[in-house]
């Protein structure tokens, strides 16, 4: 039994093949435009306010919605649902457990994953969104549950719009595979 356990760590499968140059190019263009949209609003439009438009987990979302657009994890349901649910869970976890930051962090991420699974909205960057609600700046903490709407919800929607526009330009790409 121990042997079986360690044998599982060997790996038995193969990595998918490398993508074409055009796929690499379109991934770059999508990610550039998607991140540019939220980053421009964040740094050039609302810099002097208490508002935030960009959070780190959007970088992770960009990998999926511009780089692996067929993945179930990259579909609109997962992108929006995963971010918004995880944001709410992250804020709640911070507000309840903020006297023990290690606990607030771990409860936020673990619960976000469980909730995303249960609601079929698994989106890996959601884990980061939940974590940022706990370990983020005072500006983030100050937002309270608004964090789930702006920056998280609105930012995800902006990136989704860019994905819809860019991922459908070429013949070989199409997005989304499904909406809900």
């Amino acid at each position, binding site marked *: 039994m121990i042997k079986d356990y360690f044998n599982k760590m060997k790996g*038995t*499968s*193969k*990595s*998918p*093949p490398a*993508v*074409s140059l*055009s*796929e690499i190019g379109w991934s770059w263009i999508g990610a550039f435009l998607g991140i540019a949209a939220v980053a421009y609003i964040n740094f050039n439009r609302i810099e002097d306010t208490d508002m935030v438009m960009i959070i780190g987990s959007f970088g992770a979302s960009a990998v999926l919605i511009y*780089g*692996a*657009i*067929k*993945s*179930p*994890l*990259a579909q609109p349901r997962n992108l929006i649902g995963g971010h918004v649910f995880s944001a709410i869970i992250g804020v709640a976890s911070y507000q309840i457990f903020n006297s023990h930051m290690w606990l607030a962090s771990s409860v936020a991420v673990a619960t976000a994953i469980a909730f995303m699974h249960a609601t079929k909205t698994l989106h890996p960057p959601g884990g980061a969104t939940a974590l940022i609600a706990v370990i983020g700046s005072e500006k983030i903490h100050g937002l309270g549950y608004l964090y789930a709407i702006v920056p998280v919800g609105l930012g995800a929607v902006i990136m989704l719009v860019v994905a819809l526009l860019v991922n459908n330009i070429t013949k*070989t*790409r199409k997005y989304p595979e499904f909406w809900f």
Partner: protein
Amino acid sequence: MSKRPEKKKNFNGLEISDKDILEAMKDIPGYIDITTGDFKELYRLASRHSLKRITQSIKAGDIMTVEVIAVKRKTPLKEVAKLMAEQGVSGVPVIEEDRKVAGIISENDFLTRMGAGDTKTFMGIVAKCLKGKACVALSIRAKNAEDIMTSPAVSVNEETTLLEITNIFKERKINRVPVVDSKGYLTGIVSREDIVEAPFFKRDILS
């Protein structure tokens, strides 16, 4: 009698290699978010499901032979044998005057009563003959269909699935089943040959 060796492997779907999957992935532009191992597992399970769906969607009514060669209870065995030989069938249903199924006669029913013993094969008879024991069919010469038929016959209805029929063949070790309607009247027969000949299994299914 020695047991026949087990020679069939379990059906696991058509074998597919990592290379096949990688080639197919290259045919699809874009990053495919799945490993070859996961794909293989999906393929194996999906083909099992589709096989089940196919074998359950084909019904006895779709593949049965409608023009059944049948005999009556009182048909003399020499006529039954002649008919089976002429028509090239290895079994016939025995029907009542009103076409209700009374039983079925197969080569096995003849063989057992002709001294083939437990083997119930033609070679069993040859073996007995060569040993010099009585082996002729004379003992049943004067008998009728109803005297040697297997009764009641295992039968199915037109809605019975191909999967169930193949299981019946396997479990009962028989080669044909009469198809009857709700009142027990004969409407057709499904033999092993009907399954092999079923339109679904034609070679051009792949093209």
